[in-house]
């Protein structure tokens, strides 16, 4: 016999991974574009982005064909605009946002991040202008993503900034009311996350990176589902540690492949290679969602008791697999319970099986905060600020990063359906309990001291 069963099993290892690279993010240093003339600033920002990123889309296509790995999204991030565009008023900053939009459109990328500021200690006048510019900047652009960093474990939480942002968030949603407040989804509020986190929606090129850097992000839900389905077909009663090992292996394989893709793109663009991130983000394939993974593990519905344990198991296995696979695994891994991007979660909100409280609980058990959650449009600013500060203070206490994206949908009440162009799913506005009862607390303002 030339070949026997061991040949069979060895070759079966060569199975195709259902791997997509979720994001390729090109970080561009624009610090030296600073100028006191708005026109010169915008012109040099535009030229810098075009010159560095014009080949990004075609190189992504070439490398995708070479390795047979689809690339879903191409993003650009730049140095926080708050540092580059100091001394401008809100209307000027809107023009800067539009410049970013134009450059991103010109090089055909899906998103551009960097419209961001650090306000964890206090709010500079520039940052204040930037917050004031958010409603116009985000409702008049498509690709621009904004981020505001409001607190860290070491520095505490800036409650004044949170109150200001809650107000800006509501105005942003209002300014985009004909699209159900879609613009509010483009603002992310961060804590324990120097704004340099390259894999977040509102990321920017943080401190300490070079002039040009490529990051690669993997959405692991489909891989993990694939691995679990195969294991459970062999042994439907497999214990949890065996399932964790399957997850770890699948994540290892996909991290290795994605890093290869990222390094090839970086070398073709003449950029540094930054980091690999494996996060549990839903994909456009049906059933590729965290909720579906929980079902496979044996939790019939997100939010049921045991959800936190299952999420912890998945997240730990993901981190272990990624850490062994790569020296560049960023440790950013998180679970994204993005209601609007996850068909199973969206369905759960429609059937009223998933409540806002359960999402908050899950957000604190391994996921990175509230992500794309639609709330009633009449939610008052103080309540929005209190929701944000709850998430932020949990994260600060637990020494972990958090990103919050919530949308107070103008003119909609709890229980109404809501649809967004570009988002895969319809969702139902989730009711919030205790609205308006935290007003005096938020109005006090000030800071939460650092956590010791």
């Amino acid at each position, binding site marked *: 016999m*030339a070949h026997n069963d061991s040949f*069979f099993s060895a070759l*079966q290892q060569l*199975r195709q991974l259902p791997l997509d690279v979720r994001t390729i993010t090109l970080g561009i240093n624009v610090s030296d574009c600073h100028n006191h003339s708005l026109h010169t600033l915008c012109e040099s920002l535009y030229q810098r982005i075009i010159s560095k990123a014009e080949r990004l889309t075609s190189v992504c296509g070439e490398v995708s064909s070479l390795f047979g790995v689809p690339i879903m999204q191409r993003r650009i991030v730049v140095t926080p605009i708050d540092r580059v565009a100091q001394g401008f008023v809100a209307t000027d900053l809107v023009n800067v946002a539009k410049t970013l939009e134009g450059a991103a459109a010109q090089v055909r990328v899906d998103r551009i991040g960097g419209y961001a500021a650090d306000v964890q200690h206090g709010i500079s006048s520039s940052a204040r202008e930037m917050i004031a510019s958010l409603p116009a900047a985000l409702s008049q652009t498509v690709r621009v993503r904004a981020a505001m960093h409001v607190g860290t474990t070491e520095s505490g939480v800036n409650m004044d900034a949170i109150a200001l942002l809650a107000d800006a968030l509501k105005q942003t949603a209002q300014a985009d009311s004909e699209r159900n407040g879609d613009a509010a989804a483009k603002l992310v509020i961060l804590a324990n996350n120097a704004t340099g986190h390259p894999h977040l929606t509102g990321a920017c090129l943080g401190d300490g990176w070079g002039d040009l850097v490529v990051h690669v992000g993997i959405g692991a839900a489909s891989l993990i589902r694939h691995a679990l389905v195969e294991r459970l077909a062999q042994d439907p009663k497999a214990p949890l540690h065996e399932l964790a090992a399957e997850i770890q292996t699948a994540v290892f394989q996909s991290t290795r492949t994605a890093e290869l893709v990222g390094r090839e793109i970086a070398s073709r663009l003449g950029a540094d290679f930054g980091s690999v991130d494996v996060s549990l983000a839903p994909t456009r394939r049906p059933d590729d969602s965290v909720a579906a993974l929980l079902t496979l593990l044996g939790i019939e519905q997100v939010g049921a008791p045991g959800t936190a344990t299952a999420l912890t198991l998945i997240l730990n296995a993901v981190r272990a697999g990624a850490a062994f696979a790569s020296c560049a695994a960023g440790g950013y891994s998180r679970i994204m319970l993005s209601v609007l991007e996850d068909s199973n979660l969206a369905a759960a909100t429609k059937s009223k099986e998933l409540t806002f409280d359960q999402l908050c609980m899950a957000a604190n058990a391994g996921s990175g905060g509230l992500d794309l959650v639609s709330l009633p449009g009449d939610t008052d600013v103080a309540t929005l600020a209190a929701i944000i500060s709850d998430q932020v203070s949990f994260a600060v206490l637990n020494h972990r990063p958090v990103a919050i994206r919530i949308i107070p949908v103008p003119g909609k009440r709890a229980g109404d359906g809501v649809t967004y162009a570009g988002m895969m799913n319809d969702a139902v506005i989730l009711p919030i309990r205790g609205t308006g009862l935290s007003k005096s607390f938020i109005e006090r303002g000030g800071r939460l001291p650092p956590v010791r």
Partner: protein
Amino acid sequence: MTVLAANRVGILAALSNALDELGGNMLDVSQAVIQEFFTMILAAEFPEERDPEVIVDHIRAVCRPFGAEVALKNPDDEPPFDLVEEPIPRQRYVLTAAGQDRPGVLRFIAHRLAQDDIMLLDLQGMRRESDHSFLASMELAVPPGVDALKLRNDLDNEFRANGITIALQHRRVLAALAHPEPVGFNTVSPPPVY
């Protein structure tokens, strides 16, 4: 030279004895046991004055207990291949097909590969009698400009309905998965094929 013989202990010893006595030296060899046959394809060099008929007769004689069949070709006597003037570097991939056996799978794959000017470097495969499943693995040399994603999807679309799975992986992806060192430390990519 190809050698086909009964697969019994001592065949390789007999064959290498015969080659030694002829003053031959192996340059490249591939050997497999297919069903109950010992098969070997080899390239060897012999002293200039050695007559090809003598070589074949001597090997047959030494390997008589194994019923060896020998075929020999002298590359100098063959018409030259049509060589491309400037060879193009090709990327190496491994294509694996697995599933329930049915006629025509290899034919379809081979035609699809030929369409894209893809060369086959190596092919291994077998059918498992117990459940009539088959597995084939081939190493490909793919010219520039071929979209691996599209090729895999084309093959996958053709066979998915029949329960046959197709995997197409770049050599560097396989290397990244097989080596314990992280990517960037194990980037010795295989040399391009011309």
